[in-house]
């Protein structure tokens, strides 16, 4: 267990699962969840690298910032999603894409 590569593989799996979620999910919230997985995977990397390079705490700080920004981003994203729903729930649109019609 005390091997860097183990953590890296976990993080890589998370990263890829996140990517997979992002590119396959049609629901915006689900896409957002995928993004969270990606961010988590990056964080695992940061923390793992910090741990195995002599407790380089810069990695921890980085992870901390990522978590904070992830929260902010999630909030913003959800605000936008909810806003869309609020504004248009009564409008019956067949497809979301008004753009590029």
């Amino acid at each position, binding site marked *: 267990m005390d091997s860097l590569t183990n953590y890296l593989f976990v993080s890589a799996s998370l*990263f890829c699962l996140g990517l997979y979620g992002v590119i396959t999910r049609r629901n915006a919230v689900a896409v957002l969840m995928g993004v969270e997985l990606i961010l988590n995977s990056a964080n695992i990397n940061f923390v793992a*690298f910090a741990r195995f390079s002599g407790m380089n705490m810069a*990695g921890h700080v980085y992870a901390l910032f990522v978590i904070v920004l992830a929260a902010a981003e999630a909030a913003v994203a959800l605000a936008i999603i909810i806003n869309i729903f609020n504004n248009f729930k009564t*409008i019956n649109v067949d497809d979301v894409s008004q753009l590029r019609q």
Partner: protein
Amino acid sequence: MSNLNSLSYFWPELILTGTVLVAIVADLFYRKEDSFKVAWWVLGGLTLTMAAIRMGGSAVTDLFMGTIALDPFAEFFKVLILLSTVLVILISFKTDELKNYSVGEYFSILAIMAFGLFLMASAIDILMVYLSIEIVSIMSFFLAGYLKKSQLSNEAALKYVLYGAFSSGIMLFGFSILFGLTGSTKFFEIRQALAGLENGANLALIISAVFILAGFGYKISAVPFHFWTPDVYEGSPTTITAYLSIAPKAAGFAMLIRFFNQVMGDGTAMINDSWSALGGLPWPQLMGVLAVATMSLGNLVAIQQNSVKRMLAYSSIAHAGYMMMGLPVMSNQGIYGIMMYLVMYLFMNLGAFFVVIYIQGKTGGESYEDFNGLGWTMPFIGVVMALFMFALTGLPPTAGFIGKFYLFAAVIEAGPQFYWLAFFGALNSVISLYYYVRVVKHMYLRGERSDDVSMPSSNLVTVLLVFLAVPSLVLGVYWEPVANWINQSLVLLSSGM
């Protein structure tokens, strides 16, 4: 430099922060109808910021324990960012899209975004890079979705946010690998560590660099990370589209140059004429391919648009592609070209967008047909729009030509192995002629001379257009001052201090 000492070099940003706060507070005191008055506060703050930048001298140092750089290069981009922000704020006075909204926050957010862009231009720490990109992105999301009642705007915001989160996630993963390889977040330490890496780390280096490139590419909308661009550009308020097509792009280029020069390059740029890529990786050719792909795609898709706004959106991708031509040659001349192009592009592109905004207000549309006969009914608008179009095409004697000229010059100077790049660049400017001239065609060749001639309704419009048009033309004839300015700005902080 230590945090405390750094403060005295940090005046522009501090003023900008103050501006944000003042704007937010001021907004509380205005009723909705008067909310645009916030803009004056912001404008005032931006002016002060500009003054602070000009007074700041030309020190070259790092600030705040090596998180951001203070150098003429950053200063150059800050000036560009400020200029475009000011212009966009002024243009925003004249747009109809924001009429039904309270716009106090709009201006505050613009100011925050400008702040983020400042940081992008000067970040020398991967944490700072990530943070500044996120500030700019998040503010852009809001601005793109500012028209809450417009479905297009909402969609734009949604797509933007998801795409933005996605690409910043990938970039972050790249950063994490880079961190793992080097154990540091600071550019110069990273470079030193990278220089000492074994060959076996090359794959990791490549993967991390490409992932990071995804984040930067997303900001400058380079192929294949450009997909969000057209949707967002079309859905956003046109003022924001104009802004997005310039300021973040400029900052993105600043960041890209800095990163690839200081981290992935040998870090000796701005001393020698050219630098080499780290580990002898074939970055230049790859960048060239991306540049060609970007400009070609932007142009090709722009051709088939029926809306001038969408056309401009796609063509802004193409312009990013032109600017990217300056990257692969890895020389001062290349960066010089990019900077020159950005200056020229600022005026002509903002001008074109402003005309579109104006026409939207007049005719309620933004398709080519809405421009029919415009040259006859609104001669002033027609002339300046034609000028902007020819400038964007890159025909002499307009500013656009000078931009292209310097880029081509950089590519050619780099030697025959890059001639193909110049060739494609040239070919693309021919293609772009087709759709730019289409606007001119609709303005002049369609429609008849009419006696019902109207001039712009307000002086601000006239003044702004003149302010944008005059440089678009004059800089095409005499640009020595700009050239000198860029020459002086071509100094990057090149090692930790």
